[in-house]
């Protein structure tokens, strides 16, 4: 099998740069999720690899050979589309087989269609036309069509976007093993960070046409490269405060709403860094009724049950508002209660106020 390589790929539509110096390697058998807000250039990236349009600069290689300029049908790429893109005038069977007609005939064709549809649990609807299929069945048919030709590179454009929540949950569990069987290099586009974390070996975070971080899911969550990345991962999203950290008797501290909090000494170099964003995930906050020196006094504004947690909206003395996510077994407070908020020093992330990049990371590339 072959690896997929992007070398400094760039693409602009008029004045809009959809892809800016994108470099990425996907090994065979690896699943890389391309994650970013809508309009960040994810779909454009997939379409360049698939050959629907060509990059302005840079190169795209599959198995070491450039595929730029090659027609889509000769790139060895399988793709599943967000809107499924099934051929409406062909049965599910013919849709799936279309990917193989050029390569296999007769008995082999039928047996491979049968085996892939068994794998995807759509054997019973093979004779149906696309309009007779449920969204879930359409999506599985589209996946089968993309997988059947054993492509070297598999592109999945937000395949779970248009299916209902239950199915999305099931597919999140099912997809990784399914995709790994094919040993293709998989690029998986999604707008849902949880999906990316559940499915991918690595996540490539794309913001405004640039790859801002490529790393394993837990790494991105724990050590986001920038404020923007930190905000994209996590629901409710990360709490931020403007701080200027300084060292006091070997302790690194910062002031939030009038309270001095201790920070992780690993971030020592932040001491002379100047203005920063301090970020703490809602899950890392501890809310108590007892005051202590480094606990920030707050008032509960609202309590919202969310998933299996309760989310508290807190207001500090300076008027700034944070969110805290509490485990279900924590003693429930009620709105308007006065409480105290603490977090472990290593839970705090520091980002440069001007560039948004995380303090303490080696600066691989300066933001423009």
């Amino acid at each position, binding site marked *: 099998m072959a690896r997929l390589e992007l070398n400094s790929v760039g693409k602009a539509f008029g004045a809009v740069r959809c892809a800016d110096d994108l470099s990425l390697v996907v090994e065979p058998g690896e699943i890389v999720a391309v994650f970013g807000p809508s309009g960040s250039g994810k779909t454009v990236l997939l379409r360049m690899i*698939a*050959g*629907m349009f060509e990059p302005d600069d840079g190169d795209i290689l599959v198995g070491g050979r450039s595929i730029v300029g090659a*027609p*889509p*049908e000769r*790139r060895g*790429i*399988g*793709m599943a*589309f967000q*809107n499924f*893109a*099934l*051929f*409406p*005038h062909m049965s599910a069977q013919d849709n799936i087989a*279309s*990917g*193989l*007609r*050029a*390569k296999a005939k007769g008995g082999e064709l039928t047996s491979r269609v049968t085996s892939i549809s068994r794998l995807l649990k759509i054997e019973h609807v093979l004779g149906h036309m696309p309009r007779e299929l449920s969204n879930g069945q359409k999506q599985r048919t*589209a996946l089968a*069509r*993309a997988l059947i*030709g054993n492509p070297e590179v598999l592109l999945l454009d937000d395949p779970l976007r248009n299916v209902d929540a239950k199915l999305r949950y099931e597919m999140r569990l099912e997809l990784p093993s399914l995709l790994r069987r094919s040993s293709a290099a998989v690029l998986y586009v999604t707008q849902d960070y949880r999906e990316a974390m559940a499915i991918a070996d690595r996540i490539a975070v794309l913001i405004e046409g640039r790859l801002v971080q490529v790393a394993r899911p837990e790494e991105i969550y724990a050590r986001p490269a920038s404020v923007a990345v930190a905000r994209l991962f996590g629901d409710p999203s990360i709490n931020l405060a403007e701080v200027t950290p300084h060292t006091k008797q070997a302790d690194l501290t910062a002031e939030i709403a009038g309270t001095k909090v201790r920070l992780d000494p690993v971030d020592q170099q932040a001491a002379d860094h100047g203005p920063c964003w301090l970020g703490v995930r809602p899950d890392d906050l501890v809310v108590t009724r007892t005051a202590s020196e480094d606990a920030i006094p707050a008032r509960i504004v609202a309590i919202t049950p969310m998933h299996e947690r309760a989310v508290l909206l807190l207001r500090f003395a300076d008027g700034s508002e944070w969110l805290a996510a509490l485990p279900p077994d924590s003693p429930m407070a009620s709105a308007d209660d006065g409480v105290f908020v603490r977090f472990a020093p290593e839970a705090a992330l520091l980002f440069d106020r001007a560039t948004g990049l995380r303090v303490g990371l080696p600066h691989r590339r300066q933001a423009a």
Partner: protein
Amino acid sequence: MDHSSLAGRIFRGVALALVLVFFMFPIVWILMMSFQTNEQILRIPPHILFEPTLSNYQALISGQLRTTAGNLEIPFMRNLMNSFVLSSAAVLLALLLGVPAAYAFARFKFRLGESIAFTLLSFRFAPPLLVLLPLSLYYQQLGLSDTYFGIVWVYQLIALPLILWIVRGYFEDISPDIEHAYRLAGHSWREAFTRIAVPLAGPGIAAAGLLSFIFCWNNFVFALILASADKQPVTVGALAFVTASGIQYGQIAAAIVLSVTPTLLLALYAQRYLVEGLSLGAVKG
């Protein structure tokens, strides 16, 4: 509207009846005339009940018109044939030229394409004589005047804008991803065009073709200027026939019936697409 008053319902009923009488009466009346002898037609007051005769149709089909002044050759069946040949050929040519172009205009936004599409559209509304009169002089020099090909070629003025704009709309309604998917499955663009785009736009192509046929068939001025007697379609032929046959009103009525029957049948068959075709694809029925 379901709870309108009785007076309102009666008014609507009467109005609808009047409308139907006004628009249907001429067709019904001419149909009746075509089964009457001249003597029956000339009776005053006219009779609603009469003994129908097929003599008018027999005369037209045999091409022999017996009058008091002797036998008259009528080439009406040839006109009918010409209409079939000219309209079918024109539609086939227009489909051949128009469908690929419509596909190009729908899929690739390029300036030349837009210019062609809009030039053809705007000349759909230009006076036809403006193009036809100079063209008739060119045709004489090129030896194209009074040839089937020459007439089929100018019929493109009618058929091509229709096919181009209607079929273009159908192609635009097909998600490009469907074609991309087919190509990624290992097929060339030509296969994607013939196996995906064309079948999916099929109803639109058929509708545009049928409508083009109707409009070519109904055209009068193009053939009036460019065709001589043996190439003339029924529209021009019927007029010549009126002049030649003088007072053979039964045969004239039968000729009219024969001239309009094909288009009326086609129109009934394609009625689902008529609105779309009449508005060049801007309004869906």
